[in-house]
């Protein structure tokens, strides 16, 4: 497996091998699925949306709906206006959503379709809405698509009436439904009235009832998105994922925002909790203090299995930064930290974290790929890998314990139901990391070293 990957690293300026990112539209669809009764619509040829639905379904093991403008060559030459008009009409007729969230593809972007103009001129049924976001696949990654679609909703819908609704908006970042539930739980503990946007919980984790519903109960409601303009403030989680929509809302509706790291690990979760405490002026309830204490307890109990172990972490930028902080809290060394998503801030933030914990010899890279990560590992091995399913081949061939975290996880079940954020999420990560390391020890140690109690 991966026999063609050599240790010698050669300079590559054009060839991408085994990417650690994908294109904007899939992120846009995921954001739109976090809005109640919303149909994501892909403006381009139908292959894109087929790939995106497939990919989201494989990660969540849930239906991922999205329609398409079904371009063929004609539309590619003459423009996609008529495809969009027909598409929107059919979507409202047949699937009856409350809102259609259109995103572009590299096809419609390259021919320069003016979505804004198309939508302004379109007949939209009474009480229904159409919004759009530009998501060219040749810029950024799926993370860009995710926040661009959030910005699309804000741009079209959010309004400031001049009267505060007393709520705090929470932008959860690119996370799983299980994470969003955990964030909501913490906000409720802290008695902060909030709007979660987007909110894929209750949409991409639907219970089995024997009755399929195209629009499940969950998702941010449209009036809540309109009301974002009247929120007291925004807690934007994920420094590289949530700033863009938060900054747009500030510019548009004068809602201030606080940018926080994704609350992975103790310190980042503390910061989230402290922000909430300031907002509500409430004491932190014992339930949270208990969770935190249990987490620290377990980290200390198991420290011998973590201390000075080297880790390679890869995936989406804010997830990777969060995991980096957390493994440092556990005494591990984040030897290689890599995201496919481009952006200089990632490296800057990662290096700041290295500095904070006084670790040296760690490498951070944005716009990298897994081929390069593998080459680094071939040159200097790590004790653990944490990342998406696409790391499994490296883990297998280099014989490294592997913990699946992030997006996408295509080869395991139930992961999206459980959080990695908050103290509970960190506790789960500690469990997963210790399982991987200790299971490895059990499997490979000699008979005389095989322990019943560890």
């Amino acid at each position: 497996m991966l026999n063609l990957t050599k240790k010698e690293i050669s300079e590559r300026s054009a060839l991408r091998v085994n990417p650690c990112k994908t294109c904007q539209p899939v992120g846009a669809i995921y954001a739109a699925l976090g809005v109640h009764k919303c149909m994501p619509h892909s403006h381009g040829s139908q292959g894109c949306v087929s790939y995106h639905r497939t990919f989201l379904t494989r990660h969540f093991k849930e239906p991922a709906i999205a329609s398409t403008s079904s371009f063929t060559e004609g539309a590619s030459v003459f423009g996609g206006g008529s495809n969009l008009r027909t598409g929107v009409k059919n979507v409202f007729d047949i699937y009856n959503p409350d809102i259609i969230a259109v995103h572009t593809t590299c096809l419609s972007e390259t021919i320069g379709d003016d979505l804004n103009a198309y939508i302004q001129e379109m007949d939209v049924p009474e009480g229904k809405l159409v919004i759009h976001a530009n998501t060219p696949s040749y810029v950024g990654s799926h993370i860009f698509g995710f926040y661009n679609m959030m910005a699309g909703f804000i741009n079209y819908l959010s309004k400031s009436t001049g009267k505060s609704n007393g709520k705090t908006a929470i932008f959860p970042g690119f996370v799983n439904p299980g994470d969003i539930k955990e964030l909501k739980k913490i906000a409720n503990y802290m008695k902060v009235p909030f709007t979660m946007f987007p909110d894929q919980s209750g949409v991409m984790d639907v219970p089995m009832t024997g009755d399929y519903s195209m629009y499940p109960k969950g998702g941010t409601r449209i009036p809540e998105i309109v009301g974002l303009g009247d929120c007291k403030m925004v807690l934007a989680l994920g420094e590289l994922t949530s700033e863009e929509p938060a900054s747009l809302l500030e510019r548009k509706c004068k809602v201030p925002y606080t940018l926080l790291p994704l609350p992975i690990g103790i310190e980042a979760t503390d910061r989230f909790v402290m922000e909430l405490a300031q907002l509500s002026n409430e004491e932190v309830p014992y339930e949270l203090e208990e969770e935190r204490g249990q987490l620290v307890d377990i980290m200390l109990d198991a420290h011998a299995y973590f201390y000075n172990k080297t880790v390679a972490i890869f995936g989406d930028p804010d997830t990777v930064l969060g995991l980096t902080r957390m493994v440092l809290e556990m005494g591990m060394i984040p030897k290689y930290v890599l995201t496919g998503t481009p952006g200089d801030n990632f490296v800057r933030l990662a290096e700041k974290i290295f500095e904070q914990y006084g670790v040296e010899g760690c490498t951070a890279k944005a716009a990298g790929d897994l081929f390069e990560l593998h080459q680094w590992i071939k040159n200097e091995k790590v004790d653990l890998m944490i990342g998406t399913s696409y790391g499994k081949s490296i883990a297998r061939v280099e014989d490294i314990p592997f913990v699946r975290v992030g997006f996408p996880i295509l080869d395991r079940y139930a992961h999206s139901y459980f959080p990695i954020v908050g103290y509970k999420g960190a506790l789960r990560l500690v469990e997963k990391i210790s399982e991987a390391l200790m299971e490895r020890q059990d499997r490979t140690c000699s008979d005389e070293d095989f322990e019943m109690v560890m």
Partner: protein
Amino acid sequence: MNVRNIVLDKYGAKVYKNRKEHIIEINEETKQQPIAANTRSIPGIMTNRGCCYAGCKGVVLGPLKDVLVLTHGPIGCGFYSWGTRRNKAKPQDGRNFIEYCFSTDLQESDIVFGGEKKLRQAIKEAIEIFNPKCIMICSTCPVGLIGDDIHAVAAETEREYGISCMAFSCEGYKGVSQSGGHHIANNTLMKKVIGTGDAEPTKKFTINILGEYNIGGDGWEVERILKRIGYEIITIFTGNGSYETMKNAHMANLNIVQCHRSINYIAEMMKTKYGVDWIKVNFIGLDAIKQSLRDMATYFGDKELMERTEAVIADELANIAEEKEYYYSKLKGKTAAIYVGGSRSHHYQNLLADFGVKTVLAGYEFAHRDDYEGREVIPTIKEDADSKNIEHLEVTKDEQKYHAYLTEEQYEELKTKIPLEQYGGMIKTMDDNSIVVDDLNHFETEEFVKLLKPDMFFSGIKDKYVLQKAGVYSKQLHSYDYSGPYAGFNGAINFARDVTMGLYTPAWGLVTPPWKNKSTLKAKLVGGEE
């Protein structure tokens, strides 16, 4: 009850007018009618179809284990087609390119200023690092629009580096589905690969397997059986396939065609150019396998081969007899719906019938009319703007390499006995009142399930969980839900085992919590009663 009309009636006038041509409720009269296929999907309809690139790179070229397939475009297309189709492969030298995803990851400036320079550089880097003997370049939507000349870059690569390099203009927007991409891939393989090798076969009865992509190891199971009988397989298009063996494809006596939709072009062209005959086979379903093996033996007309064929059939059937009986008892009387690909929905009906399961609805994602109605309708298929955009390759007889196994008289005689250059299409074999739908969409899937209440639905990942949530056991026939093989005698048992597991999993009986005395189910639960 006319199920077809009930579903169609829910559409507005325009969509109704379009979709009614694609849906047939089978009876004596409708069996003779043409079905609309291989036409554009309607914008706004949630179709399950993919694109030209998906057909070219994802289906046909992707499985080639010794080829570095480079996606020229932004990152998404390459990323999604990486390791997601189950093309199992065992490379001879341990060098397996399928484990890698290669892309030029085009950025905005490349779109503005052109991507050729980056493509050239990527090829240079790929050769330096990976040293492939063959590179195939696949273009994506924006590349076609900005006009990068990938064919010129390929020719330049061949000159400069002395390796084989081919370009495929398979931009996603071409044609109406994956089908156009299959065609583009096959045309180039015909032009640039087949016939360039000179490795002589070592055995008497030589074949190529066409349209077998080794999903779940199907190709290996078919190979096992054919080798037992005594055939030499020159190459497989393209499951566990290689550039190296494809070059010698013209040396074979006979092409056997499994998925005719994706590859009938190659079969036809090889017949014209090299005199290699082709027959339609199906290794899915016990009766179908037996028939296919006997047809092959009949083609070669060799007494020993025929005897060997019968002996292998008897032995293989004896091996699975007990299990077959068991699974038949578990599955008989159930009903199924199938919606996949461009041949599979037909092939799997045979296999289901072996276990007493009746197909009540079947449809193809990207088929053409001949897949539904039989090859004889090809001359009557009207060309439209979308199909005209896909290059049609004219080939002529290669005087030096042309070889025919049969004399013309023998050929004419055999034509009446075995499916030489022939396949009958799906509709002819389906029962009255069953439904055939082309490009079945999400809305129709939901509606037909409510009306037909099938026990199981064979489909793809995009609708799998829609169906399961509605209480219908659903299995992916694109990926076999990561099981398989389902081809061949042993494969049939694997399939029956998996379906039985799916239907009889105890959790189906636990869907309704005890505190809900009133069931809210819309469809019959698979393992239970109505």
